[in-house]
């Protein structure tokens, strides 16, 4: 299938993100390898876009595609590669995965209609990148005392003790997260707390106690704050990811203006 060229009656336009007018189109491979990434300029902004086959990206078939892990990973990585190249050159407002327009005219109409909001979103992230910071703590090893209790009373006491320990642990972890967030936020333009990932998802033995994203202009100062925070907050290991296109720092929704 991949060898066949795109059919004119079967194409939509996939929008990766928006950059300032005057930026170059990324040369990274598009989500549909038969196409190429171009910049569609409308006023102050340009949409990074490429043509896609509707056999793959139409609403009707998309749920099926999304259930295919191999397809999904491939397309997600292509989406990210295009945006990372744009990010390396300047400010970019990333779009959510699978933003597809019926034709070029509709895409251009969208860009022209939201040009002001998009330009404002670009100005906000100009010269800044998103960094992800996660903190991991060793798992609490205790517990199970109650299950081994020899009498009803011992059982109840052990249960109560375990409950108290759990509450204390939760409090101390919430405290760690609040302290980390405060310190990192001081060296960032903005920051958000994200959902913690379970151990199944994080793929680590240690437990995630903190997950944040920061919009950062000065990498050096942020890295210093990170090193200092890791030193001062006991028992946590920090992990830094990025730089990312600012997924967490663009308006979640841009309706018609």
């Amino acid at each position, binding site marked *: 299938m991949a060898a066949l060229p795109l059919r004119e009656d079967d194409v939509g336009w996939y929008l990766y993100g928006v950059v300032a007018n005057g930026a170059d189109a990324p040369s990274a491979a598009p989500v549909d390898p038969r196409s190429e990434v171009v910049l569609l300029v409308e006023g102050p902004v340009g949409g990074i876009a490429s043509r896609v086959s509707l056999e793959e990206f139409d609403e009707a078939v998309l749920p099926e595609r999304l259930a295919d892990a191999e397809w999904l990973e491939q397309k997600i990585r292509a989406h990210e590669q295009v945006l990372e190249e744009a990010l390396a050159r300047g400010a970019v407002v990333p779009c959510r995965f699978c933003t597809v327009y*019926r034709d070029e005219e509709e895409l251009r109409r969208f860009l022209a209609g939201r040009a002001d909001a998009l330009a404002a979103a670009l100005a906000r992230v100009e010269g800044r990148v998103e960094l992800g910071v996660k903190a991991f703590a060793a798992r609490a090893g205790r517990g199970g005392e109650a299950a081994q209790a020899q009498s009803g009373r011992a059982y109840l006491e052990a249960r109560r003790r375990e409950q108290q320990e759990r509450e204390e642990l939760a409090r101390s972890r919430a405290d760690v997260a609040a302290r980390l967030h405060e310190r990192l936020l001081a060296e960032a333009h903005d920051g958000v707390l994200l959902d913690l990932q379970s151990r199944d998802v994080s793929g680590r033995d240690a437990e995630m106690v903190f997950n944040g994203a920061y919009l950062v202009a000065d990498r050096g100062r942020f890295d210093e704050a990170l090193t200092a925070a890791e030193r001062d907050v006991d028992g946590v290991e920090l992990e830094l990811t990025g730089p990312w296109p600012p997924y967490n720092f663009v308006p979640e929704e841009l309706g018609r203006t």
Partner: protein
Amino acid sequence: MSPDRQALQHEVTLIELVDRVLNKGVVLSGDIMLSVAGVDLVYVGLRVLLASVATLEEQKQRAVEGAA
């Protein structure tokens, strides 16, 4: 970095990526579009990927244990 550690790093980064690309970024509404991955689709996709990552981890674990 050992190959195992590298593979793990790769998967971890994939999770980060999925989390961002599927859940964040501007959602454009109001125009007629063919497909904006709505919340439901996003979670379908995420579950699939997580399942595949978990499977990979299991396979790696078995490979490590098998080699030991």
